[in-house]
């Protein structure tokens, strides 16, 4: 194991894939000289030059479309959308074009396109730079959706995304970029559709997306002190979703709490709950619950923002209540 930042883990994944395949390119706002807005592409511009690491104008819809056109004709582009809030600017090219062209053409098109973007509150960046819009793209058939929980996970999953022949939306968590993590030495990839069990337990299953899987793990340590043994699952990919691992876990624990930083309404947590419900209903000892962000725009002031963030303390409290009543 080595100790590197989350940002470095991502740049290593891109670097290794660019070295491995000359058709891999990186494009987006500030990915060049600056090395990415969050330092996730540092050194790549210098190593691969201005054509394979391309700074773009502020034209999200068209540079995503450009990368789609490049993907259809032999390249394997990684396109960077600085904030998931900005996905909205590119939704036509993502949702109507990249997601649909293979299907509409009867399977003629191959779309090896990775769209990296960021989510997460906690930096006082207000309503247009803080959202976690994973549900938005999960809704559209034809897109794979990845939510890594840590640096090591991000590296292995991003390499898989780049090698995938389908459009993949890869959600990085903004709070994580500068944090240091243990990451395996050498090359490795992590397959899509296989959830990771971070901790075994028998009293309650907690599914956490993105870095909330790690916060759930922290909560689980506190719960142990209360004599509650929680099982923690990181789904890794929302599309495809490893329902089987969640179902097996809930059958054993009888309780399910889902934690996701997206808005509650029509969100990922509700979707995961419903997609496993019919298989676990008769095994439940308590109603399924979810811990998400309230249905309000993200406010600026820390006094308003922090109380909204699903964190380890809230996970602990909610899980304890579900088990103890």
């Amino acid at each position, binding site marked *: 194991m080595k100790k590197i930042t989350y940002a470095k883990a991502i740049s290593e994944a891109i670097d290794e894939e660019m070295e491995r395949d000359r058709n891999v390119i990186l494009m987006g706002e500030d990915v060049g000289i600056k090395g990415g807005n969050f330092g996730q592409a540092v050194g790549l511009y210098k190593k691969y030059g201005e054509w394979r690491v391309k700074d773009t104008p502020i034209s999200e819809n068209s540079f995503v*479309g450009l990368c*789609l*056109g*490049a993907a259809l*004709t032999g*390249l394997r582009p990684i396109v960077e959308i600085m904030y998931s809030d900005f996905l909205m600017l590119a939704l036509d090219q993502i949702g109507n074009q990249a997601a649909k062209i293979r299907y509409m053409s009867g399977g*003629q098109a191959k779309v090896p396109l990775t769209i990296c973007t960021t989510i997460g509150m906690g930096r006082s960046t207000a309503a247009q730079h803080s959202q976690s819009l994973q549900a938005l793209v999960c809704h559209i*058939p034809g897109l794979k959706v990845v939510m890594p929980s840590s640096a090591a996970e991000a590296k292995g999953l991003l390499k898989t995304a780049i090698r995938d022949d389908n459009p993949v939306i890869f959600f990085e968590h903004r709070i994580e970029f500068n944090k240091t993590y243990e990451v395996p030495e050498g090359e490795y990839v992590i397959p899509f559709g296989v959830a990771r069990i971070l901790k075994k337990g028998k009293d309650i299953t907690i599914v956490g997306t993105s870095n909330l899987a790690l916060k759930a793990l922290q909560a689980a340590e506190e719960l142990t002190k209360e004599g509650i043994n929680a099982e923690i699952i990181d789904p890794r990919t929302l599309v495809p979703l490893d329902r089987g691992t969640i179902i097996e876990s809930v059958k054993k624990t009888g309780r399910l709490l889902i934690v996701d930083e997206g808005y509650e309404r029509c969100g990922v947590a509700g979707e995961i709950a419903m997609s496993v419900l019919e298989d676990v209903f008769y095994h439940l000892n308590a109603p399924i619950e979810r811990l998400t962000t309230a249905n309000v725009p993200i406010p600026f002031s820390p006094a308003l923002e922090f109380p909204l963030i699903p964190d380890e303390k809230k996970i602990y409290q909610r899980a304890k209540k579900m088990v103890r009543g």
Partner: protein
Amino acid sequence: MKNIKDYNLSKSQISEMYQGMLKIRYFENKVVELYSSGKMPGIAHLYIGEEAVAVGVCTNLTESDFATSTHRGHGHLIAQGADLKKMMAEVLGKETGYCKGKGGSMHIADFSKGILGANGIVGAGIPIATGSGYSAKIRGTDQVTVAFFGDAASNQGTFYESINMAAAWKLPVIYVCENNLYGISVDIRKVTNTKDIATRALAYDIPGIIVDGNDVLEVYRVTKEAVERARNKMGPTLIECKTYRWKGHHLGDPGIIYRSEEERKEWKERCPIKSFRERLLKENIFTRNEVVLFENKAKEMIEEALEFAINSSFPEKEEAYEDIFMN
């Protein structure tokens, strides 16, 4: 007006151009029949009257070049040599169609001929074509890409954003605006201040060419220059083809209330096929018998395509779940 021989086209190229336009016209006349008799599901957007644009442009392309098409896309496909049988089958939603019945008239694509999809979203093919150009540049090939789009698409953000990038990066893309004057019912002259769309090329410091879109030879000529520029790494060109759709926006729209009878009549008199035929005969390129032979051959091909499509089966309902992801 120049003579046909001034364009340095071979006799077989000229006959291909004439037959290309005929195939488009007859194919679409057949689509009208199918729609009117209730045999065709959904709708289609007809290219009748605009045939010279697709044929004039695509005569300059090889099968290794690329193009993005539009909702009004039959002409681009046929001009690029697509299989009429698979096209007709797709229009009827059959399993033998280009898209196995999942795309229909609006989304016929033939990736083997470089057609990177036909788009239901106005202006959405423009960035895709730009990316295909970027790809050719990175891969170091001399492939060029044509983005076909209409006048209305020139008011989408994708038009500005994409041409801006293509110009900045000297991408081998030819932006072909088929200005048929109307976006459904909205007259371009009522929503745009400039008389021409090609003048917007000034904003990107690239050539902007205006051409009579009903003159197949002139469309061929200006596109040839643009393709040469692109292949020689001199960057993109914007070509505006002035043309007119004879029919409504789509089947079922008579196209009458927003266009005067006089205007419609005037443009029909400038039929791109009729005028080319007259020139072929007048300049003794082909005899009357030869021209009639081309016409009969094209008609026959459409009948064969129709027979193939009608005799094909509809897809099994399980097919709806296929081709979402590549394994």
